[in-house]
């Protein structure tokens, strides 16, 4: 198996090649398990509670906030897809 040799300049250049991703993006991706669980909970609530479902259909963002959920763009898009709105 050939051994790759690295000059210090090459190592330095490769270290610079991967700058950190924006912290907010990383945090959002890390929160995916919790976000998914919350979305599941909202969909379940919408199935069980006709008033909540109606409110979601009327104004998704407002209904989410009123119920104490976060209503960021990605959550809203995913919920629209799941609830077929």
């Amino acid at each position: 198996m050939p051994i790759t040799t690295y000059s210090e300049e090459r190592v330095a250049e490769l270290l610079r090649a991967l700058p950190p991703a924006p912290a907010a993006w990383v945090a959002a991706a890390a929160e995916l398990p919790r976000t998914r669980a919350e979305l599941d909970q909202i969909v379940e609530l919408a199935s069980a509670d006709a008033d909540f479902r109606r409110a979601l259909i009327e104004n998704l963002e407002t209904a989410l906030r009123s119920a104490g959920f976060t209503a960021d763009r990605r959550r809203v898009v995913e919920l629209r897809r799941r609830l077929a709105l």
Partner: protein
Amino acid sequence: MGAESTDGELVASCRAGDERAWTLLVERYSSYVYAIAVQGFRLQEPDAEDVFQDAFARAFERLGSLRDDEAFRPWLAQMTRRLCVDSCRRRRDGYEEDGDEQGDTSRELERLDEALTVREALGRLSSDCREILDRFFSRDESYRTIGEALQLPAGTIASRISRCLGRLREELEGRKAVVLES
């Protein structure tokens, strides 16, 4: 379960519902996925963010379909590349990479892959070396900032960086590094 865990161990823990394992996977690959989108495919920030979030969301949803847990890295890279191509197509109707463009992208992706290998080797160094190299090369911090953060005389930073780079080269080239902590 920690930063030293293999991808396979983290993937298995994620499947078992361990949120910490997922966070570690995201932290391990966030700069790689980001670089594929921004440097490999030159996506602008809003599109790059969508690709970044979608790549991790798909990975999370489809962990169950990953055949080899240790193959998480190429699997995630492939999903990210596909999402980038889709994003380019949406931006530029009928987008098809021409030969030169495809060649440039492939070379850049190879470089990023190699960069990730270097980063993994960095993870095997002492925490002192990891921190100083990360601050200087990845975060582009000055000697002064590093000195203040690590409470080191600014005059010793350059020699420490050089020493740690040497250790990193040894790690990369598979040699046994002589670890002489200073």
